[in-house]
Every structure is written in structure tokens, then in C-alpha cells.
């Protein structure tokens, strides 16, 4: 199947135009065409959350969205969070909230969504929010700790 369509997207502030196969998902486009390999693929069926990234202000699964659907959209990946995620990155390091780091881009995206959405330092609520993101290495606890640290740091 070779059908392609030309799309234009703004990714991490830069505009890119490319002819993409209409069946290609967004995360494959970002990784293989644009070379933004920070977003990871763990299942390609929308379960693991490794591919979570931001499209027009919403966190989406890059494996469940086609690249052509992102035509005209603003996409932000882990490479582009900049200062927005600085506190979370520092807390993740401090708490050792990552091991192999494969889930981390998606985990950080979901954590950012929770923090920016005004979520409280409520461990059960954080755990629930992060339950679409699998981590096979950590015990999740350090990730919850890191998110709490950021929220409590901001509120104090």
C-alpha cells in the first residue's frame, strides 16, 4: 500500500512538511521521518503509554493517531517540553523515578498533564492518572513521589 498525502505540522516549534503514507501512525512519523526518537513505542496498540505526546494541547497516544490526522496541528514531544517539564525532570532524577528510561517520555507526558491540570498531591489520584502508562522497571512509587514533590513544591 503506497498511498501518501502531504502534511504540514509544527513539531516542537518547527514547521515540517512531508509526504507520509496515509497508514503511518504519528509516532512512527516523528521517529523515522523527523528523527525525533524520544517518543517510544512499546505496544503499538494503545495500551502501554510509551508513545504519549502532546497534540494541540492534549496528551494523545502517538501510536493511535495517524500522521495525516496531525496535519496542521501543533505537536510537542519530550524533546520540546523545555522549561515546562523542568521541575518534573528534576524530581524524577531526585527520586530515581526511572530505570531503563523507556517508559519515561510517555510517563513524563502523563505526569505533566496531571500537574498542569492542577491535580493535587493525592497518591491514589496520581496512581490512577498514570495507570495508562506501564513501567516495567520501577515500582511506580518513585514516580508518584516525584509528582507529589513537584505539586507540593509548587504549592509551598
Amino acid at each position: 500500500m503506497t498511498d501518501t498525502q502531504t502534511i504540514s505540522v509544527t513539531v516542537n516549534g518547527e514547521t515540517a512538511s512531508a509526504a507520509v503514507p496515509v497508514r503511518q501512525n504519528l509516532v512512527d512519523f516523528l521517529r523515522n521521518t523527523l528523527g525525533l526518537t524520544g517518543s517510544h513505542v512499546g505496544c503499538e496498540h494503545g495500551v502501554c503509554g510509551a508513545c504519549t505526546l502532546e497534540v494541540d494541547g492534549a496528551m494523545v497516544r502517538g501510536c493511535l493517531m495517524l500522521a495525516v490526522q496531525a496535519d496542521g496541528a501543533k505537536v510537542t514531544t519530550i524533546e520540546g517540553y523545555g522549561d515546562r517539564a523542568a521541575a518534573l525532570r528534576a524530581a524524577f532524577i531526585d527520586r530515581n523515578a526511572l530505570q531503563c528510561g523507556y517508559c519515561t517520555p510517555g510517563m513524563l507526558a502523563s505526569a505533566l498533564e496531571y500537574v498542569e491540570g492542577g491535580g493535587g498531591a493525592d497518591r491514589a489520584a496520581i496512581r490512577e492518572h498514570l495507570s495508562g502508562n506501564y513501567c516495567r522497571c520501577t515500582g511506580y512509587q518513585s514516580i508518584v513521589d516525584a509528582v507529589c514533590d513537584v505539586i507540593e513544591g509548587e504549592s509551598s
Partner: protein
Amino acid sequence: MSGPLTIFDKPNSLIGKPVDRPDAKRLLQGRGKFVDDIQLPRMVHAAFVRAPVAHGRIVSIDLDEARAVPGVIAIYTGADLADHVEPYVGVLSHMVGLRSAPQMPLAIDTVRWTGEPVVMVVASSRAVAEDAAALVFVDIEDLPPATDMERALEPDAPVIHPDFGNNLAWERTVEAGDPDAAFARDDVSVVERTFRFGRHTGVTLETRASVVDYDPSEDTLTCHYSGQAPHMMQFIFAKHLGLPEENVRVISNDVGGSFGIKIHTYGDEIATAAAAKLLQRPVKFVADRLESFLTDIHARDHVVHGRIAVTPEGEIAALAFDDITGIGPYSMYPRTSAIEANQILNLTGAPYALENYRANAKVVFQNKNLMCQYRAVGHPIAMAVADGLLEEAAHKIGMDVVEIRRRNLVKDDAYPCTSATGMKLDDLSHHKTLDKLIETMDYDAKRAEHAALRAEGIHRGLGLVSMIEVTNPSPMFYGIGGAPIASQDGSTIRLEAGGAIHVSSSVTEQGQGTNTILAQIAAGVFGVAMDRVKVTTGDTKTTPYGGGTWASRGAGIGGEATLQAAHALKEQVLDIAGVILQAKPEALDIVEGHVTDKDGTQRMSLSDLARTVYYRGNELPSDMTPELVATRHYRVTDFPFVFTNAAMAAEVELDPDTGFVKILNFWAVEDCGRVINPKLVDEQIRGGVIQGIGGAFYEECIYSEDGQFENATMADYLVPMAFEMPDITIAHVETPTKTSVLGAKGAGEAGTGGAPAALLNAVNDALRPLDAQIHQMPMTPERILKALGTV
């Protein structure tokens, strides 16, 4: 060995400090370097046609339509690769009687499990390769499959390798004392149970991946490999593809989870390397999630009939069991699939001072995916059987489960000793860890609370486990069996001209923090700040030779090599500094990047010293060797393994109406010897516990009778998610191993090995007042309701 080298009293030692992981910054910026991130010029992509049935004879393969797909570069069948790949056989010479058939990367005449690779398609993209693979037609005549491991040994079962006559791969019996006489005593109480353990798999979030490049001008093969044992893979690629070993380079940068999954020889990966060699260009293969479920090794498929006899005083009079395990159609190469059963024979009951022991294991071939080593090999089964029987026995004689452990655990001052199972044990602390656990969890208060809640119809349970964990294996593990698996590891440390040091080590990093602890050890022992240490691991071309990371050996073995190398480099530096400064080397030290007097007075910076040696050698006496690099290798001697121990407990709440179990608390007290970085160790243990919870409640590879894998998606195969997981309380007891100066044992597998036993006991504690018991994992709601007799 325990020489005069001691470092732990040094004020600037970083050992024991919860320092941050330097690599975390990269990973949090999306700058990890995983295999699938690699794009090489002229790179092509592989996809596989896999067996759709568990057992069948390949009648014909039609490739015509697939070949016609634009973008297809090559298609290989098993017969095509047979001339280019030497077959591999997964046996070890010291596992007497173990047999397995030769394996090839792609099936040739017969397929033996659903998912076995049959045809490889190489194309310009993975999508095109998959399109073409879908057009390959493989005509397979079904053969009757042997999928049920308990029935696979029956005389009328289909025989998977006809030459073998039956499906028995290996059998071993361990016996000590006189168990029959002990079971026959009239004063003992006997408990007998059958335990069933579900087959599960590692589910590394990054699937298996490799990019293999071949350069015909130099006959060199370079493999970017998501794996744990680069030097082992160097040997395997060289041997089975017919290349000089020194021409093969294996590079493992960031690895997205491994857990033992990534230390084996997989047909699709060997085929990828063969294709790279034949096509003389880079070939990438990244397993998709379905391929991972179907072909990543599985583990834990066991049925164990166990018996324990205890005296009225609670002493274990005898322990005996029969284990049967189905390993798939082959024993996995090169580690063998018999190791898991062997571990169970060796480890069951080993924390306890027992004299009478008998264990038999039968390892059988079956038409399912291969089983082999996964995190905490054999441990969850060994611990669940021994501690499951022990807690039941305690209830039978009306004794508290803590008290029965206290009466049977090997005394902390009884080491060294040998267990009934024949294991040499030293430096363990079962009583201290149990005491600390009881205190940490406030055991008595919990018991009282549970009793009160029971009156209100709330069903809570507590379960414990006392366990040992295999770590720091010596050459007596694989070396004697003839496998190309190093048990020694090496570290090379050099002083850079700028005053930093560079550590190059043969142990590898998969997220545990290996690179960090090596930097901590080197920085503290040598005398520079952490940020002046750079670490390289995972490259056979640039690191010393060694085994990589498996069996919790990185810190204990790689760490000790690094410690010794840092000492040796320090001696070199101080010798040279002595000459330059006209001082006795013994009067000097290195602190924070400077050569100092013993009292701390700075004499010269390391960069001054290094620049003098490297650039201005004319200022040095002519008999002085300008060498500022040291390598040391280390292996464990005298012991086959350095065991660690732990005590763990779980608190659960059971809903008898739905069968759902909520884990309220989990406590783990581990003695992993010297703790190098508590922050990393604690999260290792937590991650391990979570995988253990997975095995206990969620994870199972469900096969149909005819060998179809029925839940091979992440939506259907359940792994622990953040929401259901408890916070886990960790405490440590530190009994350094005497086998090394560093004193570190491993910590990677304890949680996975111990948690299922504690959880099984906790659920049974909650079920007991309801007159129900469960001995099958995962403990799904349905199975719990069945145990309760309500469905």
C-alpha cells in the same frame, strides 16, 4: 579475599550515598540511544512469517507473490539459511543427561510452536516487509501437538523430537538425609499440597531489537543489540555465522528493560545477522508486541506436588516435592531451559536448617514457546512451595508463622554452612532480617487489627516469606558447563589529561544504575568528584571481557573489579606524584581531584600530573613508566554463588464476593551486603516486588489446548499498573560478603523471587477463616472464587 584495602572509613567515599544517576538526565530529555533509534545508510528491515500452529510439517512455501512486492530485497526460508548458520544446541555438559535438538534460526521441515519464525522478508521498510510477509503462503500439515506438560510424558503423547523417543528433556533428583523415615514418624504433622504456577514472560517495554551491519571489506559484523551480555553474543554471532570472533562487535547502549529476556539466542535475531552478512548491508529487526509475546522466553510453568512434616515443636522434619515443568520444544541456547528447575531443586527450603530433603524435577518438551531464565530464575516457585507449606504446617500445629520460622531458619552465627540442598551458604542474616521485618510492619498490632476486622466481616491476611537469592555467580555456574558465558568481569580506569577518569567495564546497564554505582565506586576509591567520572559499558570493542549483567552480578562482580582498578590507578598516580613532589607515595593521598599530603594539604592537581606525564615526559626520570591506566578483573572463588537473603511480608484484603484482592501493604527487608546506593537499590527491590505481584495476581500466558497463545496483546496479558500497586516499605540489614573487599551482593531479583510466596500466604491467611485455600498463581478473581466454591 579480604586484603588490607579498606575504603569505607574514608570521608570522601561515595559508597553508601544515595547519589543521583547521571544517565537520567539524558533519558528525561528524550536523548536515550535505544536500538530502534538507529538509522544507518542503506539500512533495510526484516519481518517474519511465523508458524500459525503449534506443531506441523511444512509441506511447501510459496514466495512468488511476496517477491513481487516493490521494495522487497530478499526473502529467506529455513533451507536458505541452513548453509550459512551453524545449528545451536542448548545443553550444558554438567547437567548430565540434558538433551535438546539442534535449532536453526528459521524452521526447516517442522514447526514446533506457534510463533516460530519460518520465513524472513527483508524490505525497504518494516511496513513493506510486513506487506510481503502477509503474501507468503506456507502450507503446513498439522501434527498432533503435545502442549500439556503433565500429559507430554504419557506413552501415547505425540513425541516432538522423534529421535528422542519421548518428551523428557532432563530429570534430576536431590536427596539428603532420610525423608521417608521422617515422614513416617508418628509424632509429625504432614501437610501436602499441589501448587500450580502460570507461565509468564518478561514484557520488557522495549521489545527485542537489533541492527546488524556487515562490512565485507574487513569481514566485520557490528551488531547494535538490545541485550545484557554483549561478549556472549559476540561469541554466538561469530561461531554460528562463521566469523572470526575478533571481527564481531556487539554494542548495547540503552536497553529498555531486560529481566533475563535479553540473554538468549533467538532465531529471528540470528537470521537478522545472517541476512546482514548475506546482503552486506545493515538490517534492522525490532520485534513487535505480538512477536514478543509469542517468542520472548517464557518462564515459571510448573506444577509442584509438595509435602512437609513438622514436629509438635514446629521443627521441619522433612521436606519433599516433585516438580514438573514444560520448557517448549527446545532447551534454549546457550543457558539451557533446565536451569529453572535446577534452581528450584537447589533453593527450596534452603533458608531453613533441615536435614531430610528430597526433590525431583522433570523437564519436558512441549509445543509451546520456549521457557528459560527470567528475573529470579526458579525463586518464586522455590519460595512459594517451601514457605507456603511451612505456613500451612504452622496453622496445622497451631503455631504462629513467625515463631515457626524462628525455630527453623539457619542461625545467623551458623555460617558458613551447607544447606540440605547442597548449597554453600555464608554471611546470611535470616533472623536479623525477620526481626527487622516484624518490627517494621508492626506484626502483632496487624494481627490484632485483622482479628478485630474479621468480626466486622472484613477479610484481611498477612503472609510472610524468608528467602535466599542467588547472586554473584562464579564460574562454577555456566563455565563448567561449557557455555560462552563469562563469570569474571573487568574494569579499566584511565586518568584523562584533564584530571577526570574514565571507567570502562564489561558489566552492562539496563536501567539498574550500573554506570552510576561504578562511577561512585571509582570516584570514591580513586579520589575525584562523581562528575569527573565517565563510564563506558556495553561495547565488546572497547570494554574489558566479561559476562555483562544477569543473575544480579553487576555490583558484586563488576563493582569489585572497578574498586580494584581504582586502587591500582591510584597507586600509579601516587608513585608518579612521589617522584614529581619528592615525597614518599605512602605519605600522599588523592582527594577531590588533587594529590594531597595525608593531612589533606593540596600538592598538585590531577590534571597537572596527567599533563606532565602525557605531554612533558621529558620532566620525568627515564626509568619512570608513563602509565596512568589500570585494569583489574574479578571473579568469585570458593563459592558457586554469593547468596543474599530477605524477609518480606504482604498484607491483603480479600473481597469474597468478587474474588478481588487488594494489596494494602508490602514490606521487604533485604540483606544485599554493602549497599552502594540506597536510592537505586530500593527502587530495584520495589521494581522486583512489582514483577512478583504480577506473577502472583495478573500475568499468565494463556494457551489453548492446541497451543494457540490466546492473550498475546498488552490489553489481554495483564501487567501491574500504577493504580493497583501499593507503596512498598524497604529496610536493609547489611552483612557484607567476605568474598570481596566491596562486600556487595546482588539485589535485583529478591522482590520478584519472594513476593509471590508472601502474597500466596497472605491470601491463604485471608481465606482460611472461610475454609478455603488457593495454591495456584496467578491468583485471579475467578480462581479465588473457585477456591471459595462460589463458582
